[in-house]
């Protein structure tokens, strides 16, 4: 157990330090740094899902005034390393999904680039494609690698326990393809200098060092030949957690035209093909219990898709390994590689779809046992981690459920479905649990330097994608250095700063904060409390700050009230309440925002989001904000959150755990369970839309 630093700045609700820059629009995002004489890139995408490009006629495009280059697989440079096939941009004629880059135009203005891209003629030889995931797809295989988490787990005698169960819930739940859709489109501005020896990318990314490593590998460069800059990023929710093909394309185009920056902002529509998405899932959950609701057996089998280009496996059944006590348990994952774009992280990959299925099934079990859903969960609380047998560092699920229920006004409800009606509106309430593992990414490094102005300059290549890292890391540094927040000048978002891990898996503040605390301790040990100007220390986060002997997770409970219109099936969510336990809260103002935002996205998952992939052509047919629905202001009602005071020194030296993802986990189940309570209709495929409710 590590000693926690004395909190003075940590825990205070400081306003965002970059707030004034953001509300005025002065904070520069990737596209917005001042560039001299930039060029603009517009790509040409494949319009078929599988086959070959047999010819590209660029003559019409090249004839336009202002066009500087048309890149195709015939003239593009050969990349040094394309082992990661997502980065094999314009390296062959093969097409593996609808929306793949097949050419790109670079021009003096965005209008000309776009017009010219429309004039590029692509001839092709198309092959039959397969873009539809089914539960019994013949290509299903067990995904995963040696070093990742096991795809399958089994404890006890599942078959016998299923037979013995007095009450058995056995249903299949489906979640659709969903797209992250951060508000700022993925953007890269690429500039080669020094005779095409040094590359700078102004990138919209969750990890500058992550992008640098990928791009350096692809182009066969040393790390110090690549600089990636991202002081402000307009959201990511996972999709900006790695470089994608557009980074490579922009860098290739810029190398063909050295000395001039090439700006490439994906359109909203292009983001539905090129920057990842959440796989659809088909999840069968079996819960076997005695009449009192005590689980004897829990089986969670998840079927998902990935691309033929590279595998990304969403671990949706993982949550069933730690949520509830059950002596007999099995979890499996199966994946089919389809002719679809590369899927990737989307906020709480695994837990978000997985906890929807598990928590919807728990609601069905509560109903089958005639038990209150809160009480059912309390009865199945495991004393230790069912996977490892380790004690919990800070498992507060029961308190979240009970206090949340109290605050929401849960108790006293008539559990019978369809029992409450107000005019034409059927009213119901639902609950679901939330949990997210505490993740720590080793390897982050921080530098502390005492400046001439008497302030500590703290540098780390972290990125603020809206989490509040600018402010939270400043607070952590202030406490670790024993000064006020004003005494710290933070620098982030640049590979010229010490290495930092990705802003992902709710691990950013934990991993970077630990590095900062470590560097601050080193600084104080080396230079004392009255350092000379210019004194500096650098240190990396220890590899083992998380106590291995404990199961370290965050928990929460969601409560939702929904109203469903009896005639139209319209679903409204007038009230939601979320109660969380995340260890010590570094900045209450911003943590609250993270929870609220996660819950809005979870409600969105429940009711709105679905990317329709057209089986004939393999593209997403509703690929823009008019048709891919996310909540508007009017869709969000009285949404409140709170958390249990606490600290978890086994997680980080700050006593905090991650907060970015737990808000979305379980929300969809709470809303769907409330819809069932309101209407008596159990919708088992998200999103829950009026047609399904009216059924």
């Amino acid at each position, binding site marked *: 157990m590590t000693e926690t630093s004395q909190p003075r700045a940590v825990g205070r609700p400081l306003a965002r330090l*970059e707030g004034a820059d953001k509300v005025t629009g002065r*904070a520069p995002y990737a596209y917005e740094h001042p560039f001299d004489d930039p060029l603009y890139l517009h790509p040409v995408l494949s319009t078929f899902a599988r086959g070959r490009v047999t010819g590209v006629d660029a003559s019409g495009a090249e004839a336009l005034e202002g066009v500087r280059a048309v890149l195709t697989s015939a003239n593009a440079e050969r990349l040094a390393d394309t082992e990661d096939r997502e980065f094999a941009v314009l390296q062959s004629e093969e097409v593996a999904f609808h929306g793949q880059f097949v050419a790109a135009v670079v021009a003096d203005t965005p209008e000309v680039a776009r017009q010219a891209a429309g004039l590029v003629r692509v001839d092709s030889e198309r092959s039959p494609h397969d873009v539809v995931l089914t539960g019994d797809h013949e290509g299903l295989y067990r995904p995963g690698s040696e070093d990742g988490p096991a795809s399958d787990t089994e404890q006890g005698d599942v078959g016998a326990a299923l037979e013995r169960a007095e009450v058995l819930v056995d249903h299949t739940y489906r979640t659709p393809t969903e797209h992250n859709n951060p508000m700022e489109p993925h953007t890269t501005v690429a500039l080669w200098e020094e005779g095409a020896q040094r590359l700078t990318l102004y990138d919209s990314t969750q990890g500058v060092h992550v992008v640098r490593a990928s791009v350096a590998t692809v182009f066969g460069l040393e790390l110090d030949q690549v600089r990636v800059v991202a002081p402000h990023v307009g959201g990511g929710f996972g999709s900006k957690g790695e470089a994608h093909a557009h980074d490579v394309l922009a860098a290739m185009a810029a190398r063909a035209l050295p000395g001039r920056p090439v700006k490439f902002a994906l359109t909203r529509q292009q983001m539905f093909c090129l920057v990842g998405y959440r796989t659809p899932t088909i999840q069968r959950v079996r819960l076997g219990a005695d009449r009192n609701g005590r689980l004897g057996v829990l089986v969670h089998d998840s079927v998902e898709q990935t691309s033929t280009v590279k595998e990304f496996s969403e671990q949706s059944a993982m949550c069933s390994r730690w949520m509830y006590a059950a002596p007999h348990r099995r979890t499996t994952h199966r994946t089919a590689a389809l002719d679809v774009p590369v899927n990737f992280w989307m906020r709480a990959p695994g837990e978000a779809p997985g906890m929807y299925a598990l928590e919807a099934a728990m609601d069905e079990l509560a109903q089958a046992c005639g038990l209150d859903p809160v009480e059912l969960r309390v009865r199945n609380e495991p004393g230790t981690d069912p996977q490892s047998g380790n004690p919990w560092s800070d498992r507060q699920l029961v308190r979240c459920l009970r206090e949340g229920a109290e605050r929401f006004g849960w108790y006293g409800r008539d559990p019978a479905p369809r029992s409450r009606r107000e005019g034409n509106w059927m009213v119901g309430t639902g609950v679901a649990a939330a949990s997210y593992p505490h993740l720590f990414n080793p390897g982050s490094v921080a530098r502390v330097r005492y400046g001439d102005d008497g302030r500590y300059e703290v540098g780390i290549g972290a990125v603020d994608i809206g989490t509040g890292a600018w402010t939270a890391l400043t607070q952590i540094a202030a406490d670790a250095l024993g000064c006020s927040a004003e005494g710290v000048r933070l620098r982030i978002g640049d590979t010229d700063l010490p290495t930092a891990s990705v802003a992902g898996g709710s691990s950013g503040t934990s991993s970077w904060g630990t590095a900062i605390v470590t560097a601050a301790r080193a600084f104080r040990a080396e230079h004392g409390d009255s350092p000379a100007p210019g004194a500096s220390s650098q240190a990396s986060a220890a590899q083992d700050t998380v106590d291995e002997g404990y199961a370290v997770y965050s928990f929460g409970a969601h409560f939702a009230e929904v109203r469903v219109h009896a005639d139209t099936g319209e679903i409204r969510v007038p009230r939601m309440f979320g109660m969380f336990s995340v260890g010590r809260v570094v900045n209450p103002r911003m943590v609250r925002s993270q929870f609220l935002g996660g819950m809005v996205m979870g409600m969105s998952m429940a009711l709105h989001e679905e990317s329709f992939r057209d089986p004939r052509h393999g593209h997403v047919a509703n690929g823009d904000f008019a048709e891919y629905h996310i909540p508007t202001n009017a869709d969000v009602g009285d949404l409140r959150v709170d958390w249990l005071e606490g600290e978890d020194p086994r997680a980080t030296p700050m006593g905090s755990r991650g907060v970015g993802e737990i808000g979305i986990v379980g929300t969809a189940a709470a809303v769907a369970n409330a819809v069932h309570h309101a209407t008596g209709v159990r919708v088992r495929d998200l999103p829950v839309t009026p047609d399904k409710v009216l059924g």
Partner: protein
Amino acid sequence: MEATITLYVDGGRHDLTVDTRTTLLDALRDRLGVTSPKKGCDHGQCGACTVLLEGRRVVSCLALAVAHDGARVTTAAGLAEEGRLHPVARAFVDHDGFQCGYCTPGQVCSAVGMLEEVAADWPSHVTEGLDAPVRLSDEEIRERMSGNLCRCGAYVNIVAAIREAAR
């Protein structure tokens, strides 16, 4: 085809030559380097590009620059006076009405324009009756701000910020 136009942006005069296909948003961002309005969709679907055009809120990605020769444009950057934040912008900071900040300049401009519409008693979908004075309830704020998407889901705080700024 190109055209030469004049825009008055945040109080400054700009004479510029634009492709006649250039949107007002791209004229601001690409030609003038005024990047306060953001591009989230380029299709009038998200509100990130909202500016005040002659005092009224518009999505600048759906306006052609050439059609607004001589126009007065105010962005969120131009709402600040003498380095002091506009009260609506100040309230967004105080209430944490944003996370990533990318939708925010559009939200702020939209809120400022919206409050003018309310002051002029323009009814909305949720207003009772067409002639009565408009009372700025939370429901009215939510309805009137629904043209500005926020993927970070800061809506609760956006409503709180506007409620306070309107007082």
